[in-house]
């Protein structure tokens, strides 16, 4: 990477508005050269950028801000919620923080694309990760690669003894936790991910032996689904520490979760709608989350194909119908306006 001697270009790199507030964290080698390139008007590129921004807005105002109402209700009054109510709130928080942050990243990436700049992908279907190690290759990619390059590798990475390697993993994840906030519950959240990673690495030989012993094909879809669900459960457990106001509260919330096996809340037609979202709002949230998962699964199965490009290949009438449905879904079902003072993007604070 050559030194940038043009102050104006350097200032533009530092203050590049689409990603200034909440990332992605762009490396100079990726963004600075683009400031020297010529940029042209391209109808399809601009349209694709606008569609990416539209999806980002959908993630933020329709999904994240809606599920946040339930999350805030339950986590704000956790003593009155037990069992699956805590499970649902924690699942919704996982959705909230993903849609909030990925939504912002998509808006930033789309805005940059409109201007003919390319920003790095910050998320790659993180909740379809098959291990915690895999999760961190898919979650907040620009931060995790930065931490890997500037903390983990600087400490010696994995080119050292096993003990030092695990020490390096723990330090990296504890710093990741601290980066999110100077509070112990963030540190514990980072520490949990460090422990997950270390244990995952320690138990790897055992897992391989067990798979051979029970003749389990690690490439089978059912095994992969199992791994995805297990990983998601561990990620959610850590999210409780991230979301709770303190470590003590997080532990109490986990206790509340195991206090009662209240599976009936899924069937009694009222309990689900007494957690901050009424029946209509809860159903909108559920449908939106299903849409989110469908989009993620499509991208997971066919990484080179985006839903946007699939829509683009359809006829004009179908494309316009999809665009209009998405725009009006945001305008009608979005959580914004004076009735709901739109909550800020969570990652603005970090």
């Amino acid at each position, binding site marked *: 990477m050559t030194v940038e001697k043009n102050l104006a270009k350097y200032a533009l790199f530092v203050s590049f508005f689409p990603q200034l507030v909440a990332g992605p964290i762009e490396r100079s080698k990726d963004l600075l050269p683009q400031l020297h390139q010529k940029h042209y008007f391209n109808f399809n590129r601009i349209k694709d950028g606008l569609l990416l921004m539209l999806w980002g807005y959908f993630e933020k105002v329709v999904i994240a801000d809606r599920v946040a109402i339930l999350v805030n209700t339950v986590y704000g009054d956790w003593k009155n919620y037990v069992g699956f109510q805590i499970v649902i709130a924690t699942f919704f928080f996982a959705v909230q923080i993903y849609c909030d942050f990925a939504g912002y990243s998509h808006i930033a990436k789309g805005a940059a694309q409109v201007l003919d700049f390319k920003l790095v992908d910050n998320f790659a279907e993180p909740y379809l990760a098959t291990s915690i190690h895999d999760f961190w290759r898919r979650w907040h990619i620009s931060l995790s690669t930065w931490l890997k390059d500037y903390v983990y590798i600087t400490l010696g990475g994995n080119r050292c003894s096993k003990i030092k390697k695990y020490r390096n993993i723990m330090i990296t994840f504890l710093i990741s936790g601290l980066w999110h906030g100077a509070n112990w519950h963030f540190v514990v959240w980072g520490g949990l991910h460090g422990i997950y990673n270390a244990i995952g690495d320690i138990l790897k030989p055992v897992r391989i032996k067990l798979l051979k012993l029970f003749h389990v094909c690690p490439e089978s879809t059912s095994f992969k689904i199992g791994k995805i669900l297990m990983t998601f459960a561990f990620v959610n457990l850590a999210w409780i520490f991230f979301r709770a106001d303190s470590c003590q509260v997080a532990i109490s919330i986990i206790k509340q979760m195991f206090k009662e096996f209240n599976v009936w809340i899924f069937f009694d037609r009222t309990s689900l709608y007494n957690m901050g979202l009424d029946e*209509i709002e809860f159903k909108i949230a559920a449908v939106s989350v299903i849409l989110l998962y469908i989009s993620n699964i499509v991208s997971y199965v066919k990484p080179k194909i985006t839903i946007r490009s699939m829509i683009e290949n359809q006829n004009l009438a179908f494309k*316009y119908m999809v665009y*209009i449905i998405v*725009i009006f879904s945001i*305008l*009608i*079902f979005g959580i*914004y306006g*004076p*009735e709901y003072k739109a909550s800020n993007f969570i990652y603005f604070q970090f």
Partner: protein
Amino acid sequence: MKIVIQVSKVIIFIFLFSVIWFYIDSVLKPKFFDGIEPLTEFYRFPRQSIDVAFFGSSHMEFSINPVIIWQEKGIPSYVLSGSIQPLWNSYYYIKECLKYQSPKVIVLEGFTSAVDVELDWSRIVKNNIGLKMSKDKIESIMVSAPKINWLELIIGLPVYHMRYKELTKRDFVDPYIRGEKAYNNGFYTFDKIVPQLRPDVAGITSLRDIPEKQFKYLNKIIDLAKSKNIELLFVITPYVLSSIEQERFNCLHKLAKENNIKFINYNLLYEKVGLDFSSDFLDSQHLNINGSRKISKHLASILFTEYRLEDKRQNPDYAKWNSMV
């Protein structure tokens, strides 16, 4: 050629988007009877057809029945009021009215000149959202709402998009298309009777300043009426008022005198109009159908005699008004 196709695609999309936007906006827009719906009905009213326009708070909406005024003296009129309609909104409602009608007399109900208007959000919405998009609507919003809400109110949809949870058939099926009328030229009332204690403010002669913002817009209304050669009439409808309010009405009376404007305070004319506090009110602030009939008859007579308005009951252009009653 490629550019022509791309531009055409954008134009088609914008057109489709606009059509759907206007439909969805009309469905989701609140159908409040105070402030919004009378205005919607007003916009569809035959142009240049009324001689008297009434403005003010819900006091006006519940007190003045244009049907009675037509029946009594053949004067075509319309009530454009809103819930606690502040005088700045009255001012912009008058301006809006004058784009479509040329009334000979504007009757302004003065309740909000006596109260310190701290409007809640729903009333800011009711008194602005019904106006058609124009420079006046934007100005009305800017003087009514906190700056942070200006854009939301101008666009509209951000304010009422959450109504998707309360939509009914009425939101989708326009009653006017079916030829039905929801309101009688802006008049709305109940036949409920709730007896009230009769206030006695006749002895209160002291003056109390009208709040600054209200005073400013009273003067703007006076100037507007003068510039358009329209007669103004200030009216205070009967209600259970306080002595402070009466002191401010005295101040309003003084302002009216200074500008040669007729002023009628019905709280000093209970006997003259035959108002009965045991049967003519639906609550402490509003008249019911009985009370409104008495006030409307009295005011029709004043309008006819003192403003020399024409009786249009025999005018073939107003044949529909006879069927209205």
